[in-house]
């Protein structure tokens, strides 16, 4: 009875916390507030200085020289007073001019443009809250004319507010007409594409007709440029697609590299990639490899279903369950989004980031620049605004009913010209036979079926589970991450499922040395089953301070013999109390303690850390610390077994290697920036070729400001963005495109490691051809520029050379070393 009651209660709690995905609630309507607004209007002053106000929405006057003063009225309670803006340019009496002003309390930003040209933007971030003003028309005493007053309930940007001159509209009409003709000529059979191009030309003509010669324009620069943009895209599709490959009735597919530095925003034409209906990828058994394409709509498009039924070939089949399909979700992040971890809280930048199954899980208002999370309560779903700076940060706990669907859901492209990037990640089974496997991602749209084929070549290559440092295949490359997340779940089974799912994901992303994966016997057992190799265990606690055994005794009076005795006692105590992890791991597992991180004085780094380090080493542990600049290498090279540095520096690496130590990086990159390419290159080829021994990624899930990056980070040590690679949801995480960039970077190194293993074993081969091929392989790796080598071409090049060398070894009786030597025993 008691057990049933407990089970029922647990069920109720679980049911309360998460309901099955529901129909998305209506799009949220932001509160209409004067603190987010834009105003634009045509004005002509009869005389200077001007008399009266052209509109009641903002104060606007011209002085005797024609310089304008525009002001947003503050609430009377605001200390800073009205927000006053001054023009750089002068207006002339009797001439029409277009005034454009916007204000955003959220962004602490106000701008003033005149005739589309910059005039003023605030430097002082203490902007006032504004009073609501409703009178649109001019004041009674206004001397002049005002026309076409436009208002927005958000801070429309300068090109949205500015009006297109007739010259721009003529250009739009000309270019859209030319594009329509070119599209029809190039792809007459692509009726959807032709219709799109023709609709753009028609719209451009309509705009031109709205603005006869000499008339004041009412068409925004943004609207005119949208036509130019879309016409160029339509033309590019028509002129670059081979036959009609990739061109469908309602959309085109553009094959793109999954991890480039190009942020593909909703109306962009990808900079890299080409219109195509297929993509070829290459992988080894056990590897995860991604294909990606962008769907660009010719008209508003509904996609009712997306599926992949797996890949097939003469060698066998890879089931659909092994193909993970995801939508790349664009949402707003703070300034320096995409490229840096520093937080400019004023800006809101739309970036591709989240990998989701359900596009409606996160609602992004592209006018108001806000993000909303869908919370699925049992009595109905709501959208919660997580981008309101006034509400500061939003934490996370497992009871928040936020969870993605299990499989990819229908989605829509609301406008012609809008795109959606899809990612298809194939998990190649470990026992997959070499050969070509083919399949397709099929989309059922309301304009007909769309199919994007994937051709996968599985290579006859065993990749090592872990890469090794460049030139040294005797030890693993450090793939350290801080840290495995706290386990969530309301029942034991939920917690076990959560842990296993996370372990599988972290291991699939090559982060073998993540802190915490061996922290309990259950977790350690699971981690070993999943495939983690416990050659280095970060970060274990070390023995206590030996001088704590002499409380009250001045340290300078303790003798050497007493010190030694205390260290022995500290180690003994540690063995008794803190070495439990050694019981559930093999005896070759190496424990690593962290010393004095980010210290910069000799006393801390050498003297105190030295005492800590001696005790740790007596206990059989190794010691490392995170250090800035050169201090650790100059003062603590004998004290630490490794430095985790802010620098990527060849000389520093050499210095640590000279004394048998290791050298990794923890700050470049920090987690936070969205670009997957940055992680792939920096953590991969660049650090590898610079001679580093690995990297520590300083954040995995959630971080300090998970959703709202725009609040003040009280208590933080700087204006940093969220330090994470994934976001929490119930039962797991929403992962990001950049996380897959990490995986890819380390996969690149696994290929280079295998090539190095094969080559180094045959550099002195008896057979001359084999010897030369081995040398060529090493010379090729040596010639790779860590910063300028094309990463995709590098990986393909490594794969091709591995096959050639393997064949040469077999043919000429050379040595075939194991992919996973002694340091990766658990992987065997």
């Amino acid at each position, binding site marked *: 009875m008691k057990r049933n009651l407990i089970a029922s209660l647990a069920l109720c709690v679980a049911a309360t916390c998460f309901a099955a995905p529901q129909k998305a609630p209506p799009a949220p309507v932001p509160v209409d507030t004067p603190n987010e607004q834009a105003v634009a209007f045509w004005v002509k002053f009869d005389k200077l200085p001007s008399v009266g106000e052209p509109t009641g929405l903002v104060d606007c006057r011209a002085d005797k020289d024609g310089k304008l003063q525009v002001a947003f009225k503050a609430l009377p309670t605001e200390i800073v007073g009205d927000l006053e803006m001054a023009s750089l340019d002068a207006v002339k009496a009797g001439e029409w001019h277009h005034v454009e002003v916007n204000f955003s309390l959220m962004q602490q930003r106000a701008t003033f443009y005149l005739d589309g040209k910059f005039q003023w*933007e605030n*430097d002082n971030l203490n902007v006032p809250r504004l009073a609501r003003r409703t009178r649109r028309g001019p004041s009674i005493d206004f001397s002049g004319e005002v026309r076409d007053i436009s208002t927005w309930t958000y801070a429309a940007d300068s*090109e949205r507010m500015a009006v297109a001159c007739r010259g721009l509209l003529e250009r739009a009409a000309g270019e859209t007409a030319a594009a329509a003709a070119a599209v029809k000529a190039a792809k007459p059979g692509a009726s959807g594409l032709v219709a799109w191009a023709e609709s753009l030309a028609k719209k451009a003509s309509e705009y031109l007709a709205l603005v006869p010669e000499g008339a004041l324009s009412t068409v925004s620069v943004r609207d005119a440029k949208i036509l130019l943009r879309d016409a160029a895209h339509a033309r590019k599709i028509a002129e670059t697609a081979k036959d009609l490959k990739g061109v469908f009735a309602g959309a085109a597919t553009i094959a793109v590299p999954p991890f480039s530095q190009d942020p593909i925003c909703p109306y962009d034409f990808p900079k890299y990639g080409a219109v195509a209906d297929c993509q070829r990828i290459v992988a080894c058994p056990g590897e995860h490899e991604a294909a990606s394409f962008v769907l660009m709509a010719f008209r508003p498009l509904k996609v009712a279903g997306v599926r992949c039924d797996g890949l097939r070939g003469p060698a066998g089949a890879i089931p659909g369950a092994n193909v993970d399909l995801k939508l790349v979700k664009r949402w707003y992040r703070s300034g320096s989004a995409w*490229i840096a971890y520093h937080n400019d809280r004023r800006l809101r930048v739309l970036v591709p980031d989240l990998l989701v199954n359900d596009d409606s899980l996160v609602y992004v208002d592209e006018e108001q620049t806000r993000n909303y999370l869908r919370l699925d309560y049992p009595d109905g779903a709501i959208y919660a605004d997580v981008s309101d700076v006034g509400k500061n940060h939003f934490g996370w706990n497992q009871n928040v009913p936020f969870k993605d669907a299990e499989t990819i859901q229908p989605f829509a492209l609301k406008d012609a010209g809008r795109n959606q990037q899809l990612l298809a990640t194939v998990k190649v089974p470990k026992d997959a036979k070499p050969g070509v496997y083919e399949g397709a991602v099929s989309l059922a749209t309301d304009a007909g079926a769309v199919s994007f084929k994937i051709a996968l070549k599985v290579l006859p290559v065993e990749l090592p589970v872990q890469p090794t440092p460049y030139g040294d295949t005797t030890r693993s490359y450090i793939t350290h991450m801080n840290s495995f997340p706290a386990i969530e779940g309301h029942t034991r089974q939920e917690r076990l499922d959560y842990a296993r799912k996370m372990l599988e994901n972290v291991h699939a992303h090559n982060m073998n040395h993540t802190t915490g994966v061996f922290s309990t016997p259950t977790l350690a057992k699971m981690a070993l089953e999943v495939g983690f190799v416990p050659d280095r265990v970060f970060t274990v606690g070390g023995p206590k301070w030996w001088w704590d055994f002499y409380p009250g005794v001045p340290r300078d009076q303790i003798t050497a013999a007493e010190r030694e005795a205390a260290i022995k006692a500290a180690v003994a105590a540690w063995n008794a109390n803190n070495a439990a992890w050694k019981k559930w791991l093999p005896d070759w597992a190496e424990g690593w303690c962290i010393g004095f991180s980010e210290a910069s004085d000799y006393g801390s780094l050498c003297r105190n850390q030295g005492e800590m380090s001696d005790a740790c080493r007596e206990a059989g542990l190794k010691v490392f610390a995170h250090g800035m600049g050169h201090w650790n290498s100059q003062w603590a090279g004998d004290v630490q077994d490794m430095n985790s540095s802010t620098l990527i520096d060849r000389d520093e690496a050499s210095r640590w290697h000279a004394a048998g130590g290791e050298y990794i990086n923890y700050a470049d990159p920090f987690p936070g920036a969205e670009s997957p*390419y940055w992680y792939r290159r920096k953590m991969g080829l660049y650090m590898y070729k610079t001679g580093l021994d690995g990297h520590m990624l300083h954040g995995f899930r959630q971080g300090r400001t998970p959703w709202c990056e725009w609040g003040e980070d009280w208590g933080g040590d700087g204006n940093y963005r969220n330090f994470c690679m994934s976001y929490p949801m119930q039962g797991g995480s929403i992962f990001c495109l950049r996380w897959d960039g990490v995986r890819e970077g380390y996969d690149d190194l696994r290929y280079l490691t295998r090539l190095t293993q094969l080559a180094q074993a045959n550099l002195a081969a008896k057979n001359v051809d084999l010897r030369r091929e081995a040398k*060529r392989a090493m010379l090729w790796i040596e010639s790779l520029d860590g910063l300028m080598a094309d990463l995709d071409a590098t990986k393909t090049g490594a794969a*091709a050379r591995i*096959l050639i060398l393997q064949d040469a070894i077999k043919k000429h009786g050379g040595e075939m070393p194991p992919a996973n030597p002694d340091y990766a025993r658990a992987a065997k």
Partner: protein
Amino acid sequence: MKKTIVSGIAFACALGAFAAADAGKNHYDVKYGSVPNNYATMLRDFPDDWNYNFRPYGASSEWLWSDSNVRRAASADEKLEDRTVTGLRVSCDEDGFDVLVYCNEPKLSDYLAKTNAYPSQRIEFFVAPGDADEPAVQQRYMAFYGDGVCREYENREPDRDFRLAKPQVTETALKNAIVVRIHWDWANFWMRLPLLSDRADSIWRLSIIRWVGPGVTWGGTVHQNSQAGYVRWPAFTPEQRTAILKKTLEKAWREFCAYTDANRTSIGKIWIGREKWRQERNAADPRSYVNVPEDPGFRATYSAMIAERRGLAAGIAKFDAMTRAEQDAFYLKAADALFNFPWAAQEAYGEYQKNQLFDGK
């Protein structure tokens, strides 16, 4: 009670100062013209071009720090006591753009006699195309530590759309000031030249932060790229446009020639033997190639890529005669083809090798 009154008065004063109008973000109209080797003479020759609106670092910047007396004295290189006097001048020519930073150092003339340390300048500077409506994905951020030491803090990796910027930074000492020159070559920004902007006015972000005293800034704080000041590029004349585009193309051409002439990437220096025995051996025993031009299977493609680009030289030669629309179209095509040839070549070779993997070769 007294404490309350005093603090109340202080608060009221602060309010009074606080409520002063925001003078707005710093902005500067860039001059067109070359900077001479003796660039410190610009202080004397163009005194009105200098902007001294550096503001206290970290403050809300509501206090505008500018004094015409200071400006005159600085241009005459008189000794100003306040070390924080800092000014800038921005100009451009066909080669690139220059930011000159005037750094007042009243103790410079006698620092040796008084055994003071030489006042090396510490300046951080940030530049990004576009105004704050645009994401700053093309930003450049670096720090100058004096004596020619300059560190770049690039956040982006080099690719077809981003080049690692290496400005030339020099300094020259006057009697009581140091003038720092930061020169960026247009080649660093070939894909985002300000004259190619299709906006009503062409604006870039610029921030200069001088670490003197508590710091002074021309545009916001570090990493806050939205607070950077604005520079407005001039309405380039047709001659100026042509000069900038053509010179940048010439740089692209030279880079392309240097790349295709290097030992490892030259089809002229690497020649392939066509002996029968060699071809039979390669067919029987496939091998890899360290250098792309060595691969006979790819050589035709590589040669064609080079030939296509060599054909652009004729267009560069007659660039002056093109119409503006022709110039813009040719520039975008040629600059991309030439500057990005290393990327294109690598990508093409990667595709070739991928095809080999698929074809089982």
